């Protein structure tokens, strides 16, 4: 421990030092450039970028030269400089020369005559190639103040000028690379290809529409299991011995099948809302889809159940089975096999119908592609959307064909040679008069 007096002296001394440092800082601030900032016109790296430097020079700063010290990785070799100088509101017409040192990355602006103090600087350095990796970078700027009286020219610097941008996503990088390819230019010179199959738009649309594809898929995958339950329930209601139950099922089926899904969507999304009922969009969408599809599946199931020969039910009954036992163990298992192809077709239709939700602002595949097209003015996103739909529908269409073939085989016996041809011809076991309803749906949608 030291002497109390010595301690006081020490404290005073340090206060004095701090005071001097602070004063100096303020003093420098007062004479140096103020309001300096740097902005970039791109939000991702790896491309030609325009840097804009804005600042106001100090009271005693007649500037003769400004240097931009681009950090490592930035390539200003082909940069061009624009300068706008304002003294107050008056535009100064000072001519200048630019010089670029590609090795050090320094871009210099040399004014022919010193710029008057207290001028506003707006300097744009265009076409600087930025490194691809995003982040926050600093652009040190140095400026030279003209010699005055006894003092020689002085170089001052402005530090802490930062700017930032992100690493471009992969599709962006690929798209830019495509921009530079000769074959892409040739391809795009054909107007139709450029409009519908532009490679650059294609690679951008694929990841962007993916989320929409997931949304469409998720809507239909949520709704379809509910539809199966609802459809089965409605089918049994339609076959009920109690007339009012039967009527209720009939009304439901006919109203739903007799009106466009588009209208049903509007009723739920707009109609219910005006009455004050508001559910989350996703939930509403699933409910509309399930409600719609249940009606179609009900008819598919009913026709399927009734297409099982009456003898099956009689055989089950004669063995002492109850109505529900016969349904559960004899009729339904056979029905499932029979309706599987038609059910799959219904699934395909439902999946495609999710596109209608674009009209009420659900961000599914169609709306996303529409937005993309609106933004890019290019129709390639529609082609990408089509491909996304086809990824699901083509395998399912094939599956329907195979299921029909298998079904025909099992019902006509393995040795029956007619099986394959009948399945291919679309004359499955379900194409009786009972299934006209389903056929009609295929045409009407």
């Amino acid at each position: 421990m030291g002497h109390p007096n010595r301690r006081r002296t020490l404290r005073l001394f340090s206060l004095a030092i701090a005071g001097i440092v602070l004063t100096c800082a303020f003093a420098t601030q007062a004479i140096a450039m103020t309001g300096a900032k740097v902005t970039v016109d791109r939000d991702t790296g790896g491309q030609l970028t325009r840097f804009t430097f804005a600042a106001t020079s100090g009271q005693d700063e007649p500037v003769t030269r400004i240097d931009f010290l681009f950090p490592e990785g930035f390539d200003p070799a082909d940069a061009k400089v624009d300068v706008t100088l304002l003294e107050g509101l008056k535009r100064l017409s000072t001519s200048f020369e630019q010089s670029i040192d590609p090795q050090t990355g320094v871009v210099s602006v040399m004014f022919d005559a010193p710029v008057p103090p207290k001028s506003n600087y707006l300097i744009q350095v265009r076409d600087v190639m930025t490194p691809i990796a995003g982040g926050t970078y600093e652009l040190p700027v140095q400026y030279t103040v003209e010699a005055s009286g006894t003092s020689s020219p002085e170089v001052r610097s402005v530090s802490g000028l930062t700017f930032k941008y992100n690493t471009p996503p992969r599709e962006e990088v690929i798209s830019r690379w495509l921009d530079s390819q000769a074959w892409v230019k040739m391809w795009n010179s054909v107007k139709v290809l450029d409009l519908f199959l532009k490679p650059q738009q294609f690679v951008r649309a694929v990841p962007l529409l993916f989320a929409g594809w997931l949304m469409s898929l998720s809507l239909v995958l949520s709704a379809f299991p509910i539809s199966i339950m609802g459809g089965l329930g409605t089918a049994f209601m339609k076959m009920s011995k109690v007339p009012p139950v039967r009527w209720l099922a009939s009304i439901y089926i006919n109203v739903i099948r007799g009106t466009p899904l588009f209208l049903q969507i509007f009723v739920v999304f707009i109609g219910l809302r005006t009455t004050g009922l508001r559910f989350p969009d996703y939930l509403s969408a699933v409910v509309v889809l399930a409600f719609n599809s249940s009606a179609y599946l009900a008819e598919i199931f009913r026709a399927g159940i009734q297409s099982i020969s009456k003898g099956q039910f009689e055989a089950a009954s004669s063995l002492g089975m109850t109505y529900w036992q016969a349904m559960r163990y004899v009729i339904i298992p056979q029905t499932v096999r029979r309706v599987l192809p038609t059910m799959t077709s219904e699934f395909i239709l439902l999946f495609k119908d999710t596109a209608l939700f674009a009209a009420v602002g659900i961000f599914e595949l169609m709306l996303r592609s529409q937005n993309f097209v609106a933004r890019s003015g290019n129709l390639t996103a529609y082609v990408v959307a089509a491909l996304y739909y086809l990824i699901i529908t083509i395998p399912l269409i094939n599956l329907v064909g195979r299921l029909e073939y298998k079904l025909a085989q099992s019902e006509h016996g393995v040795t029956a040679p007619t099986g394959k041809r009948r399945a291919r011809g679309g004359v499955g076991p379900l194409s009786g008069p009972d299934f006209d309803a389903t056929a009609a749906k295929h045409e009407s949608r």
Partner: protein
Amino acid sequence: MTQPVVRIVNLHKSFGSLEVLKGVNLEVQRGEVVVILGPSGSGKSTTLRCVNHLEEPSSGEVWLQDVQINAPGANVNKVREHIGMVFQSFNLFPHLTARGNVMLAQRKVLGRTQAEAERIADEQLAKVGLSDRADHYPSQLSGGQQQRVAIARALAMDPIVMLFDEVTSALDPELVRDVLEVMKELALAGMTMLVVTHEMGFAREVASRAVFMDGGVIVEEGTPEAVFDHPQNDRTKDFLGHIS
């Protein structure tokens, strides 16, 4: 006289305005094989189907032992457990194997265990000569084989009476014999049977009684010899004259 297994009293049945049965009376005793003959549309199949209530009688009574099956509130399913029926069109369950067909009702209706149902199924399939076809699906079997599976399926329920509804009519001639053979063995084993058929040879050989129906009533009945060789009724004579 003991209680008849099946007793039909003054049975009437109409489909809309068409009266198919106009008062049928018939009793089947334990162990009897009763063959019902007659031209098509005479009501023989309808009579048979009324016995296990696949058709609901318009009036009259149908009894299985001491239970009236068409009484209001009767448990039809319970009664049906004891009545085996074989159909003209086999009606096997196409999604199940032969063994599965024979097992299903045993499991679900009688509540037998899987093992027991399987044992009985194999036993019954052996009886009809189809042990080697137990794992085949109906579509993989000939008509005759399917019909024998159907018989096994009915027998597995331990019925007190078996109904056969023109079981050989849908079969190719060379397959008929196997099925009739099975039915004959069944008759010899003492099963009570009510058979609608056009197989005169079978009727003559196996039946304990022959019944001739026409126009919705029983016209003539008696021993096969009496009905076939010395028919009393003109319509019987006419019918037999046409087929033989």
